[in-house]
């Protein structure tokens, strides 16, 4: 069974802090994704990666960056956290369909 693990379930950070959200998958998948989920808006794609050191912007990349130094790990970085980045963040990976999701990190920025 594919396992996608996000390092934190809940995180509280202050405005202006640099925040790292970590995601690890154990199935040697090439493709990994970061989504944020907000009520009424569904899931919106922030960034994705097709391979190590490769990254591409999704629909809402502003205020975020990513890092993929190893195949199994995909990190989402909030360079300077803002209150409008309070959200649920979901990491996913895919070999062939379907997407496999982690349990999410609920980030609150105060």
């Amino acid at each position: 069974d594919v396992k996608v693990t996000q390092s934190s379930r809940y995180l509280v950070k202050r405005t202006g802090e640099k925040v790292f959200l970590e995601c690890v998958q154990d199935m040697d998948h090439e493709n990994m994704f970061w989504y944020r989920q907000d009520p009424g808006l569904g899931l919106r794609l922030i960034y994705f990666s097709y391979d190590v050191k490769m990254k591409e912007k999704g629909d809402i990349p502003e205020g975020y960056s990513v890092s993929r130094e190893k195949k199994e790990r995909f990190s989402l970085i909030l360079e300077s956290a803002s209150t409008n980045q309070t959200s649920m963040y979901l990491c996913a990976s895919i070999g062939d369909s379907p997407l496999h999701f982690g349990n999410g990190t609920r980030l609150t920025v105060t």
Partner: protein
Amino acid sequence: SQQGEEDPQALSIQEGENATMNCSYKTSINNLQWYRQNSGRGLVHLILIRSNEREKHSGRLRVTLDTSKKSSSLLITASRAADTASYFCATDRPNDYKLSFGAGTTVTVRA
């Protein structure tokens, strides 16, 4: 950008009843998938239907796809309390791994 839209936004039914929710999308697709999300959790894949398929079954789930109307429906038969969750449709386009999700339908099954 958001491709799929689920309807209704919320649904409340009695245990044993059927639940039906719909998904509409805007552009041509390769596959359409349905996912379930229990409260506070990640999404779990339920079923995938390809663009050249019209109907698919998996246990108590039945999915239909009408590409001429750009719509899909998910039917859960004989619902149980454990079916209480949010359900999302997701579409991908040809030669593109990215999935576009709708806002979801929240289903509550009353005992």
